[in-house]
């Protein structure tokens, strides 16, 4: 019975019991839920569970070579999240994290678009509580924007699925053609969740507003679910190479000037997604392996970095570079774990980032995409700058901020040490790591050229940063807001739309008054014509006005449709 239960579903259902359990039992219970959820993965590749509903077959549990590595890392991340959040006594965030993780895992096992849509929206509605958990005015507004955008993405997905259903008679998750309408709608849906350029504002807006444990969970699932979907449905779609290259490139500059270190990490996340999108766009077996390997490694080291900054936020109450510094002596274990995350994301040899990123760079080299190759190489130096150096340096070193604090809680340290160990193990034993990737391959990341080239690139990029800092060229971090694409809907559109609405409203008022006048004249005329005036036995008030306006608009539409 339990083995045909779709992975993740038991976490979503089981989360409903969490509020009724005492703290310690709750933590054990959540661990058991994750383990039970992982058990059906032993069934292997194939379609395992389907449900018929209104003559439509929903494929709730399908597993293939692509879904398996995502399922494995999502379960590992869920375990790490449970441990990392163990100090939080209140049940609300635990329910949100468990159901959010479960929804993302279930989405990876969906075999059709309608099932995917259900879980797609479920990830949005469960994760929004992690942003609300901060309990600030800013987080409330941010959560509101977040849910609107996530639901919009779901609407695109649903529209695409319904058109596909109408055209093909099914909504099976397969490779879609970008030149079809449904393909484009689904592509946009995935693109919103993958934080494509200009669609990325929600990511930097909302993630840093979440609670310290919420951001760790958020960084794992939503965007990587989108990466899985792209790999599943749009592998080899060439436009993804260009989009991904832009994604790797531009967030670097934003990350350099951003003051909030958790927001710096969201720009870094965006940049890392770019590497994966480029690889999916290439679409060869080596490239898809690279995208999946990168997603897998990325979840660990990015989670680790967010854990480190979450621990700082929990202890100090801020993550602003301008207010931090010199925390190494108070939080040495957190600092060391964060540095391991920083070294991993920078792709130093013997760490996970290196063995994952090498696959993508080799795939680019093999395909002869020289320009994109150098864009990604440039972005690699940028990653070192903002995630490799800026994050640990400004939080734990730089200058003495005068803040006195203590080391992170034990549960946070355990989670960080586990994530650090995994980052190192993947780097040391790449062949085991490669064995879970979708395609069989023979690849040796540790050859002389790769290692020396990468070490030169990284050490000299680090040396450049050192020179800029040492010779006081690097400007001080400032409390500020860095404009991002969310500016379009937070400032520009309201700036244009509100005056327009006000103008229309005034026009409507004038028109409405005239209509009332006309309607009263009609009423008086009809009253004199009819012996009983039951139809008009009350004053034409607000609702009367609305009815008249609706009819007017309706008539205008009919007139227009007749003319054209």
């Amino acid at each position: 019975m339990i083995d045909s239960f779709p992975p993740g579903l038991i976490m979503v259902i089981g989360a409903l019991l969490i509020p009724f359990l005492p703290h310690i039992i709750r933590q054990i219970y959540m661990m058991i839920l994750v383990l039970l959820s992982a058990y059906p993965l032993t069934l292997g590749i194939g379609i395992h569970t389907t449900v018929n509903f209104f003559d439509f077959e929903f494929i709730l549990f399908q597993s293939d070579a692509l879904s398996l590595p995502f399922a494995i890392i999502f379960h590992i991340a869920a375990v790490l999240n449970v441990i990392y959040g163990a100090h939080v006594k209140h049940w609300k965030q635990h329910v949100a994290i468990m159901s959010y993780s479960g929804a993302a895992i279930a989405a990876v096992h969906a075999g059709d678009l309608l099932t995917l849509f259900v879980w797609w929206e479920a990830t949005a509605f469960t994760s929004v509580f992690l942003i609300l958990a901060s309990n600030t005015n800013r987080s409330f507004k941010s959560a509101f924007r977040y849910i609107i955008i996530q639901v919009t993405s779901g609407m695109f997905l649903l529209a695409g699925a319904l058109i596909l259903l109408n055209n093909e008679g099914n909504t099976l998750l397969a490779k879609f053609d970008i030149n079809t309408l449904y393909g484009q709608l689904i592509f946009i849906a995935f693109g919103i969740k993958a934080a494509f350029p200009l669609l990325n504002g929600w990511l930097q807006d909302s993630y840093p507003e979440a609670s310290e444990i919420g951001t760790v969970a958020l960084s794992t699932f939503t965007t990587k679910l989108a990466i899985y979907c792209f790999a599943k449905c749009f592998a080899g779609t060439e436009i993804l190479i260009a989009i991904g290259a832009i994604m790797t490139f531009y967030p670097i500059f934003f990350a350099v000037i951003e003051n909030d270190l958790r927001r710096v990490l969201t720009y870094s996340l965006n940049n890392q997604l770019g590497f994966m999108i480029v690889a999916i766009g290439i679409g060869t077996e080596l490239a898809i392996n690279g995208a999946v390997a990168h997603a897998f490694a990325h979840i660990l080291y990015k989670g680790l970095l967010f854990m480190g900054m979450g621990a700082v936020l929990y202890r100090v109450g801020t993550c602003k570079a301008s207010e931090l510094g010199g925390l190494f002596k108070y939080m040495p274990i957190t600092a060391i774990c964060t540095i391991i995350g920083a070294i991993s994301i920078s792709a130093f040899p013997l760490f996970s980032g290196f063995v994952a990123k090498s696959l993508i760079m080799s795939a680019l080299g093999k395909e002869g995409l020289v320009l994109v190759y150098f864009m990604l190489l440039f972005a690699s130096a940028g990653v070192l700058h903002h995630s490799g150096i800026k994050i640990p340096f400004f939080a734990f070193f730089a200058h003495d901020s005068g803040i006195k604090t203590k080391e992170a809680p034990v549960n946070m340290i355990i989670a960080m040490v586990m994530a650090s160990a995994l980052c190192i193990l993947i780097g040391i034993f790449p062949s085991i790591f490669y064995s879970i990737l979708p395609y069989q391959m023979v690849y040796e990341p540790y050859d002389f050229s790769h290692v020396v080239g990468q070490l030169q690139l990284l050490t000299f990029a680090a040396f450049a940063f050192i020179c800029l800092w040492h010779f006081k060229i690097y400007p001080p971090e400032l409390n500020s807001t860095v404009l991002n694409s969310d500016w379009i809907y937070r400032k520009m559109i309201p700036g244009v739309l509100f005056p327009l609405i006000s103008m229309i409203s005034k026009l409507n008022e004038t028109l409405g008054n005239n209509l009332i006048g006309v309607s009263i004249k009609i009423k008086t005329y009809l009253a004199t014509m009819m012996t009983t005036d039951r139809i008009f036995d009350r004053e034409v008030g607000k609702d009367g006005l609305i009815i008249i306006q609706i009819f007017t608009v309706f008539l205008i539409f009919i007139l227009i449709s007749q003319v054209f």
Partner: protein
Amino acid sequence: MKSLIKKFGKINSSVLALCILFLILELIGHRHGETSIEDIMFFPAFFGFLSCIIIFKIGVSLRAFLMKKEDYYDR
């Protein structure tokens, strides 16, 4: 040498030493890249150093356009 380490700091000097070590490594073995441009001697070193400076320069110049007061969206 001691005065250089004192002036530049221990960690900074260690990074500089590593930079020199990795340049020497290239002289010992044969390094080749994914593209022919990368085969130029010490190319990754130059590329890494210059990229970091360019990123910094562009980032700082963007401050003028993109950096607003902290309460920008709250006003």
